[in-house]
């Protein structure tokens, strides 16, 4: 409940700041904001919460022998549920405030995007959880990192107003690919396959890194948390 309100409040603040104060000339800016803010909250809160998951559940890790992969997964799933609860509100906003036609194809496009997002977020959460068990500074650093990434990703501004030399970099940003894929579903009723492929490629790479980390670091997690 409060997670929902928090994300909406942030979207409202950015809307005031950019639409009212900075006079950003962009139609349906509020829809642009809201459709990516909720996937972002899932990503950032899931990854940061996931990073804390071994250390925060130390008794379970140390004394109960619960499989390690469960802990970050529970954070990712919890944020997924928050997102699912937010979906009706997001859809209502897209349709009522934005005037976009509701699309039947959302019924399968949204689940596909949810799967992509899980595949994207889980390796990040698992990798951060493993790293954070050994080096506790990961968690606060992750908070800073996601704040920077938030503005390094076209979240509150459209890619089109970014100066040309920076375009290339931003287009390669897998976070942008993921967020823009979500917008494409809500605002065009279509899956943006090239962007989804980029996000999926990043998810695979992150998965490989997380798997290597897991192989290397998981056996001693019980000793270091």
């Amino acid at each position: 409940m409060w997670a929902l309100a928090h994300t909406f409040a942030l979207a409202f603040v950015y809307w005031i700041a950019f639409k009212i104060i900075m006079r950003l000339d962009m139609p349906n800016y509020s829809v642009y904001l809201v459709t990516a803010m909720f996937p972002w909250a899932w990503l950032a809160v899931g990854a940061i919460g996931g990073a804390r998951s071994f250390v925060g559940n130390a008794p379970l890790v140390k004394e109960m022998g619960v499989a390690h992969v469960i802990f970050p997964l529970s954070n990712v799933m919890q944020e997924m549920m928050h997102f699912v609860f937010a979906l009706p509100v997001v859809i209502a906003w897209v349709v009522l405030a934005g005037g976009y036609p509701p699309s039947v194809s959302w019924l399968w496009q949204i689940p596909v995007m949810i799967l992509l997002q899980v595949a994207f977020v889980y390796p990040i959460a698992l990798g951060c959880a493993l790293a954070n068990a050994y080096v506790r500074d990961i968690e606060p650093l992750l908070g800073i990192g996601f704040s920077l990434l938030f503005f390094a990703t076209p979240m509150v501004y459209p890619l089109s107003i970014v100066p040309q030399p920076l375009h290339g970099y931003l287009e390669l940003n897998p976070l942008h690919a993921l967020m823009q894929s979500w917008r494409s579903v809500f605002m065009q009723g279509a899956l943006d396959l090239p962007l989804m492929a980029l996000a999926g490629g990043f998810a695979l790479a992150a998965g490989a890194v997380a798997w290597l980390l897991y192989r290397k670091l998981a056996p001693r997690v019980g000793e270091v948390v």
Partner: protein
Amino acid sequence: MTPALMCEDLWKTYQRHRAIGVKSLLLGADTPRETRFSREWALSEVGFEVPRGRSFGVIGPNGSGKTTLLSILLGTVQEDRGRVSLNGRVASLLELGAGFHGDLTGRENVFLYGSILGMRLAEVRQRFDRIAEFSELEDAIDTPLRTYSAGMVARLGFSTIINSPAEILLIDEVLAVGDTRFQAKCHQALREFRARQGTLVIVSHNMKELNEVCDEGICLELGRVVDAGPIARVVVRYQERMAAMAPGKAAGGAPGNR
């Protein structure tokens, strides 16, 4: 018949200066010294086996490696050398309140803990009445766990694992907080568990408890097995060694001398 639990030539070392921050990673840490609580080998050459239906006591002074040994048996800590094998479903009670959540009621916690122990929902349901009855918590079973005393938490934890379908129990020094009568009830339940061919490994500083519950045991000192055999003998020798080391009776010194 294969023993329920076996370990062979276990060696374990911990990183003594754990990397807990960027600072220590960058600056490194000072050279570690060998002391009672910080030595190279937490466990060395530890080996024993426990046949099905037996219970095994582990004794030794603080810092001798008892908890490390249980953690290795449970699999939360990995041995560096040696071999461990357990044949059967394992349940552990290594720390008071591990696996419980303070905001949930006792009843909900039994379900939570049961699922962590690997029980299915139907299994917990089927056993719940027995668990609640054993714990004697009565109406308190429906109040949040954070209102419980340590003894009540121990009651709930012990009642759950003793009524779980586990074939091997690992228990680390948690019964000490229960009152005398409940402890006696636990000992009775552990003897019945053993009679059902259950296997128990228990760490305790309560020698009377060990004598009542265990058949055999080992004594660890500085990570090594210094004594093994029938529990009564291990306990007596341990008490003799401890008495010899007691303050004021330092080796060679007359009582009362500094």
